[in-house]
């Protein structure tokens, strides 16, 4: 589904990703872990098409297409979803109008008719239950005045509405209490299928108690320095990133 080959990116001349190789297949959950500043969020933004970053080398092939040639909206229509670390507040744009516009744009791309209002509302009700989001939140402006936890749940709610093929969840666990974490993880798990894939980006192992990854990668100073199965996450949790830093420097 996704092949990243030797990806280098820079912002204002500073190289952040220094040669990433990663392959994600249908039905898989990948976790990308790493200390602050290792480039995790940059990788997420680059996958979603943020133009802030310059691609200096490498390629990204998604479903056989060159992802780097697509703008953010095209990527979304092709099934890529980014769960933001810091969801943006947009006063004056109602959640419902936003969701409806997004959903219908994606349907148009697939050659489908816009959703009827009644069907749309039914879908909203169903998906809201999945993430136990407060009814009132969908009557407000996008993320405006939402608490940290509400914002994160709202990301998963949007993910459920848009039903993406590849979801990238950027630190979706940060700032969540244990109950909210469970709700978010439950949402992600129930959306999992044989046809889609998820990349979970996290600093802590905690989330991976609830979302069991098929593969764990450790990002360190712009490179994936170690890959393994879910046990790598526990090892990291016990030994800390210091351990890896030493291992990398002795290589």
């Amino acid at each position, binding site marked *: 589904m996704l092949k990243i080959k030797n990806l280098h990116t820079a912002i204002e001349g500073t190289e952040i990703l220094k040669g990433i190789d990663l392959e994600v297949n249908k039905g898989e959950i990948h976790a990308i872990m790493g200390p602050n500043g290792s480039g995790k969020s940059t990788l997420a933004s680059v996958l*979603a*098409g*943020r133009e802030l970053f310059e691609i200096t080398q490498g390629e990204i092939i998604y479903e056989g297409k060159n992802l780097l040639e697509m*703008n*953010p*909206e095209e*990527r*979304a*229509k092709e099934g890529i*979803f*980014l769960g*933001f670390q810091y*969801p*943006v507040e*947009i*006063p*004056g*744009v109602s959640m419902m*109008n*936003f969701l409806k*516009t*997004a959903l219908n*744009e*994606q349907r148009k*791309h697939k050659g489908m008719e816009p959703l009827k209002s009644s069907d749309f509302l039914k879908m909203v009700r169903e998906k809201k239950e999945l993430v136990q989001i407060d009814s009132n939140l969908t009557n407000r*402006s*996008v993320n405006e005045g939402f608490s940290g936890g509400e914002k994160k749940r709202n990301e998963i709610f*949007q993910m459920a509405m*848009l039903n993406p093929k590849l979801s990238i969840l950027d630190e979706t666990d940060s700032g969540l209490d244990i109950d909210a974490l469970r709700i978010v993880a439950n949402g992600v798990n129930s959306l999992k299928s044989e046809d889609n894939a998820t990349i979970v980006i996290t600093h802590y192992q905690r989330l991976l108690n609830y979302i069991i990854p098929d593969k764990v990668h450790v990002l360190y100073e712009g490179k994936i320095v170690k890959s393994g199965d879910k046990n790598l996450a526990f090892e990291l949790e016990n030994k800390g990133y210091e351990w890896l830093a030493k291992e990398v420097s002795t290589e």
Partner: protein
Amino acid sequence: MSIDAQSIDLKDRYLDYFYKNLEYLKDGLPAYINDKREKAIQTFQKKGIPHNKNEAYKYTDLNSAFEKQYKNYMHPKKIDFNLDDIFKCDVPELNTHVVLLLNGWFYENKTPRRQLPNGVIISSFREAANKYPSLIKKHYNQYADSESESLTALNTAFAQDGVFLYVPEGKVMDKPVQIINLLLDEEDGMAQHRNLFVIEESGEAKVIVCDHTLSEKNFLTNSVTEMYVGQNANLDFDRVQNEHNGSTQISNIYLHQEKDSNVLSNTITLHGGLVRNNFYMQLKGENCENQTLGLYLGDRSQHIDNYVHIDHAFPNCRSNQLFKGVLDDMATGAFSGRILVRQDAQKTEAYQANNNILLTDDAKMNSKPQLEIYADDVKCSHGGTSGQPNENALFYLRSRGIPYKEAQLLLMYAFAHEIIGQIRTPPLQDRIHELVEKRLRGELSRCNYCEIDCGDPGKN
């Protein structure tokens, strides 16, 4: 030729018109109105036409607008048409008393709508001046500043007609008054109408003003509207300015609020060549509430300038100025907001903000707050922003599949909503939402069934 020399020539042209036509101007109007003309023209002679060397007109030079030769300055146009044929306002469920000003003259409709419930009067200013002399004399030129504002003085010198609205004590209007200002002529023209609204104690009124240009001629409007809002009275003043690029509109609003009154003024500038709105809001009693709001959308070489002056003279009043603009292409805008809190006006709350979205590098906005505070126990604030649409928000919307253009529109629409959402007449609010959306999309901004396509970007 220097600007000053030009202004003198220009000024002389207007003085000339005045003295040559003085008898005509006076004809049919009572002495208490005519007596003010000569003093007013002297003020105009002294002050001249404002240009960019005047601090208040730093960003709006009116010389070029006054320089154009207008064929018609002060004569009513005898155009026979049925209002219903030419103008059908299609705002659904907006049930209003419609009155029409054609080139500044009250247009006598075939079905006069004078007999209003509750003793409310809507009529030609000219007619009212003769019919209700004591009432009009009490208010006429009492709030407008013909002593130091040259264009207000020019209007006082030339004023012949306009709209008079009267709401008696304790009466509530059954429905809003809708004043439609139409500019329609086969030659370039100037209009200087004079409106007077009197809302007596505990009265309530809603006034909706729509400005339209109907023919592709150059027009210059220099209007004065005086509004008296009595104790505990309420006035909503909603305005939609929608004129073509060949028009210059100078609107001078003078508001006088008595104790416990509440006024909401909302000016939506959809389209216009050069627009200068002057708002002089005087809070002349305790516990007044005033909201002076505006939204302006400019493109190509349009220029929109809002000049607001709020005068807090008594304690415990609240005022809020909020002006927001979206400027595209080479459009320019200006905002100047003055808050004056006089010494006795303790416990004043006065806020001001001016926010702008500039869609191109060539679009320009000049914004100037002026706070003058002489009382010590007040809450005042001001703030301004000018910038591009929020990049983070744009990316967020796009990352969900919403195309760039649509995402930008959603954001501008949301930006405008803060003003439109304040309109207290729901059908009008819905309609303005639609018009603004269409305008932002670059589609026609005229109302669907109105014959007037004043907002057609293909014209002029």
